[in-house]
């Protein structure tokens, strides 16, 4: 099991998949920052003054880290930033689930179709599981890198 988890065969596929996920997530937000700012606002966590800046910068961090993983450059830094972002997303969604604030996560589409409150809450639970899955992928990359160190 340990050997399989650290195998280059698995590592390269996980790295590419995680990179593609993040590039795919970043592009719609980069194309339409005001809509993503609206999504960030809906989380009701960030102070109003930093929402726009966050909506502008975060998608570019996602894009550059995703590209770094795909191209195999600066992978340690990229996977660490991605893991930190995933933890942040999970915490943000969990906080809103706990306080019953039904929101669209804005993860892959800053212009989602209108949904009911129940649909949004279901989506939020799914997003937590999905992000946990991606966090496991980042964990595999970190575990495999230990072999190389």
């Amino acid at each position, binding site marked *: 099991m340990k050997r399989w988890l650290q195998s280059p065969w698995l590592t390269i596929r996980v790295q590419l998949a995680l990179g593609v996920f993040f590039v795919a997530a970043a592009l719609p937000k980069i194309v339409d920052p005001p809509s993503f700012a609206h999504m960030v606002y809906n989380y009701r966590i960030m102070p109003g003054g930093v929402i726009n800046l966050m909506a*502008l910068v975060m998608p570019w961090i996602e894009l*550059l880290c995703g590209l770094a993983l795909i191209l195999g450059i*600066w992978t340690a*830094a990229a996977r*660490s930033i991605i893991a930190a972002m995933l933890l942040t997303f999970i915490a943000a969604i969990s906080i809103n689930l706990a306080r019953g*604030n*039904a929101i669209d996560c804005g993860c892959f589409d800053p212009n989602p179709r*209108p*949904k009911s*409150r129940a649909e949004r809450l279901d989506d939020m639970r799914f997003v937590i599981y999905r992000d946990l899955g991606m966090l496991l992928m980042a964990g595999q990359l970190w575990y495999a890198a230990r072999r190389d160190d």
Partner: protein
Amino acid sequence: MNTRRFLLEAAALIAAAVICALVSNALAARERKMALVGFYPNAQKVPAQTTTTAAPVAAPPVAAAVPAVGTAASPPPPAPATETVAIRPAKTPAATPKPADISRFAVHTDKPFIEIHYDDVKALHDAGVLFLDARRTSIYEQGHITGARPFSVWESDIDDKVRKLYDERPDEKQQAQPIVVYCSGGDCEDSHMLAQKLWGIQFNNVYVYKDGYPDWVAHKGDTHTGSNP
């Protein structure tokens, strides 16, 4: 792994992202550009959750009167008290069409906006009151209430538009004229945010069309497409 090298790479990635973000925002088209520092007074206030669905329908107006604190000159408070009212005219026989009487839509300096429903919105529209569409410009162009101007709160030129509106209506009497703002209804708050901005610069007679554009369309109100009001 060399820690210093790792930190440098991480810092370089983030710095590159910041530069890319600033450059792309500087080069973005007007409707995609944003002010770097946003003004969202209620950014950390969790809204009361409702069970509204995606396509809101007109709810019967609820009469209420909730006093709120604040003056016209003070900046908008973080959580303004609002009310949803039905402002009914006295019933008169409708023999010939008359210009709509909007005298009942009086100045309310103590709160940024009053939420109203279709009947009142229609009366104000018929009277030629200024309508502002707080949705994104791209959505506005797909269809808006006839005569409404695009005033998206998420786009960088919103402060310029608000300032220009103030220049158009510099004296107190003009600022006391009713203004209706709307967005997409449901849990959309863009119209409330715009109303707060307007209240912050002395527009004391702003009404939020709570059920928004979908409700207007459902009532077959006059609409217009394209970038012109």
